[in-house]
């Protein structure tokens, strides 16, 4: 079975040494008390919980899956419910929630760390509290005072969970085709009718009530995405005293049979005249739902970071123990029957690929989480705005780049095990299967790429991207003369320039032919993803260079990983740039009938 040690030192490196978050929090009034010791202690205890409680359920969840009972109720795998109860009692669900609703009011950054660990140990389980937190954020921002009063404390304590209900059988990416109906009842409530599919954590036995955030159309709604409204629809109608009342005609019609994340109940949800209340303004549902969707996209990035890390840990341990063949340079451990496979260059490539993707993703996601904290809490409005813009730009990259990489990484992790990687008991093949969904849900990675290139970059004529470019430029200018930095700054400067050229070129071509965006988007996102990682690795290398003579081998390992990244992974950009520039003709030439 897979094991997991919370990578606390790695996390502390990013938080304290690269981001200096403790110092920055002192300037944000609501986080002023969150100092280095507090951060470390919370991480340490969260790690104990993840490794001790959540990890042992990972394979159970995978083999057992969820069960839909005859009365359409859903039972989660053995131990899920108890672990969730302990999670709530321990206050983890409340970590980054508003103190006004009994939250702990701690930074998003710490929640991000918590979720890295929960996802390393059990992605399917972590999705139950994860989606609830998204529902909390959505209602916190767009809910009516009445809705906040009814739902927020329950979501913060975890007594109730939440879901997001977007997809319908005929309508996935294109939400404009959505059919679910909402009829006003005349008393301020609505009767919701429709079928939703792929609803993660849609029904389960872990909490006494579930609030579904459902997209549906009002009777007079305009066609397309401008006619969609958002409703809060509880599984059981809440009584005035906060207790759970009668059923609300919400039921799980079926469970999906999936490739991975078996422990999570992926439901077909039927709403048969269920009573709901409007969240936000009529026909502005997508706007409200985007709060939850953006949170979920960052969440999916964390899922993939978690899987990358745990796959790396297990394959690294295996490579140090598994004895096969001799080093190409002659026996390294002559007293043993063979050398451990970590002596082989290609095994190291597989391990370092995982490691570099884990370290890059951690630096990237923690930085963005820290930016969200800045956006929410910085006293200076300019800082808040700048941080917000960066988060908007980087969200699709977190979602798509990290999940692509995690599929590669978990796959390499499995490969290190040879044939054993394919055997379920080792746990490695589950990581690959679980990682695969992350490229699909919350908007496929193609949709993320179109969002990045079409909306976030070309949509504002590259303004946000240039702001990010300026951050990179400033960093290069500042560190240019720092001894030892040139090997990291040169590729960074190079890719920054190439991104800006590529953006202009694609933008120009797109003026003549809109399909160019569709053809270039996916390779384009990969290129910008590498720009972000180059920046993150250069920042990490800077800290590591300063401390490489401290006697702590941690820092030389950091430099080695950064060197590996630039030597072996970064050059994907050369290929992707050519792919992005090669236009659309070769894709569209063949007549559809010939496929």
């Amino acid at each position, binding site marked *: 079975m897979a094991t997991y*040690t919370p990578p606390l030192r790695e996390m502390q490196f990013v938080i304290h040494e690269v981001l200096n978050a403790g110092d920055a929090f002192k300037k944000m009034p609501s986080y002023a008390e969150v100092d280095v*010791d507090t951060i470390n*202690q*919370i991480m340490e205890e969260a790690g104990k919980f993840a490794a001790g409680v959540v990890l042992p359920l990972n394979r159970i969840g995978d083999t057992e899956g969820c069960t839909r009972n005859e009365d359409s109720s859903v039972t989660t795998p053995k131990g899920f419910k108890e672990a969730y109860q302990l999670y709530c*009692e*321990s206050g*983890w669900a409340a970590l980054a929630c508003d103190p006004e609703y009994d939250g702990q009011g701690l930074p998003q950054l710490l929640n991000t760390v918590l979720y890295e660990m929960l996802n390393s140990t059990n992605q399917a389980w972590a999705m139950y509290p994860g989606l609830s937190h998204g529902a909390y954020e959505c209602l916190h921002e767009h809910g009516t005072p009445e809705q906040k009063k009814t739902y927020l404390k329950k979501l913060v304590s975890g007594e109730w969970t939440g879901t997001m209900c977007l997809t319908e059988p005929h309508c996935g990416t294109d939400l404009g085709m959505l059919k679910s109906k909402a009829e006003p009842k005349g008393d301020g409530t609505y009767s919701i009718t429709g079928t939703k599919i792929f609803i993660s954590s849609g029904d389960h036995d872990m909490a006494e009530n579930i609030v579904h955030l459902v997209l549906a159309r009002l009777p007079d709604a305009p066609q397309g995405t401008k006619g969609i409204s958002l409703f809060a629809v509880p599984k059981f109608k809440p009584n005035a005293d906060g207790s759970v009342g009668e059923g609300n005609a919400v039921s799980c019609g079926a469970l999906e049979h999936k490739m991975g994340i078996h422990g999570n109940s992926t439901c077909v949800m039927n709403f048969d005249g269920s009573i709901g209340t409007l969240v936000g303004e009529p026909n502005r549902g997508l706007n409200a739902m985007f709060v939850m969707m953006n949170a979920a996209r960052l969440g999916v990035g964390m899922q993939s970071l978690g899987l990358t890390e745990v796959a790396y840990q297990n394959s690294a341990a295996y490579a140090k123990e598994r004895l096969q063949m001799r080093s190409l340079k002659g026996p390294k451990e002559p007293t043993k029957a063979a050398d451990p496979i970590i002596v082989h260059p290609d095994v190291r490539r597989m391990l370092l690929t995982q490691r570099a993707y884990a370290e890059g993703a951690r630096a990237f996601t923690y930085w963005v989480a820290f930016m969200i904290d800045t956006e929410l809490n910085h006293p200076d409005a300019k800082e808040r705005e700048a941080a917000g813009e960066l988060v908007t730009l980087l969200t699709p990259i977190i979602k798509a780049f990290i999940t692509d990489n995690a599929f590669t990484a978990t796959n390499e992790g499995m490969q290190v095990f040879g044939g054993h990687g394919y055997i379920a008991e080792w746990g490695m093949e589950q990581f690959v299967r679980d990682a695969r969904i992350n490229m699909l849900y919350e908007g496929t990675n193609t949709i993320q790429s179109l969002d990045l290139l079409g909306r976030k970059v070309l949509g504002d004529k590259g303004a946000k991207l240039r702001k990010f470019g300026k951050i990179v430029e400033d960093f290069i200018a500042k560190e240019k003369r720092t001894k030892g930095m040139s090997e990291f700054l040169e590729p960074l400067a190079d890719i920054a320039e190439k991104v800006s050229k590529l953006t202009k070129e694609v933008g120009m071509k797109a003026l003549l032919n809109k399909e160019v965006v569709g053809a270039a988007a996916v390779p384009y996102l990969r290129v910008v993803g590498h720009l972000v990682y180059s920046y993150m690795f250069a920042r990490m290398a800077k800290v590591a260079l300063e401390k490489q003579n401290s006697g702590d081998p941690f820092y030389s390992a950091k430099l080695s990983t950064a060197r590996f990244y630039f030597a072996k992974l970064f050059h994907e950009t050369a290929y992707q740039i050519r792919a992005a520039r090669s236009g659309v003709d070769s894709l569209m030439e063949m007549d559809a009938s010939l496929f």
Partner: protein
Amino acid sequence: MKILVAVKRVVDFNVKVRVKADQSGVDLANVKMSMNPFDEIAIEEAVRLKEAGIATEVVVISAGPTQCQETLRTALAIGADRAILAETDAELQPLAVAKILKAVCEKEQPQLLIMGKQAIDDDSNQTGQMAAALLGWPQATFASKVVIANGEASVTREVDGGLETIALTLPAVVTTDLRLNEPRYATLPNIMKAKKKPLDVQPVAGMGIDVAPRLKTLKVAEPPKRSGGIKVADVAALVAKLKNEAKVI
């Protein structure tokens, strides 16, 4: 009733320790440190006694460098009320710790001193016994069950032959074994509260205690590498090998 709990900061049980090149000890630089697992059990027991209404206050003490404050905060997060750090950078051997504990017990006047049966770094298994001797208190080591009633402690001990239950008059020293309880996970609100609980730092230098080591470490070495096993043909061959090669019978 007040309970004092002694906690030691030790190398985390997950860490594969390495002997220093000069064989003077184990390399502790940049190694993850945690609370001694037996001491987690000691805290848990004390907090349960408090929750059961038997204890009124749980005080934790650690002796060592300033970083022990982290370990003490962990104990506070589990539920101890306040903490004392007997601060020193000097090497502390069990006798020195026992003397410190004696001094603190005389000042704090607890009815129970609960501590781990051994620290997993040096595996000495001495401090509790020594502290009891210095204090002149009864002791129950290797406890797997503790019941307090009528000014007495009834403690079930894990001994070689099985379980033994003894009665002690209070104040007394109890050292914990693995099966005594399963320590809880700290809750987030308690972690935050722990930050505000009192943590009193007292320099050992000012306590008037002689903590000078009485034992000298000559050399620390890795255990010999295990070589592969062999198969023997029958029992006779096994006995012959044990006699002539291993020389153990």
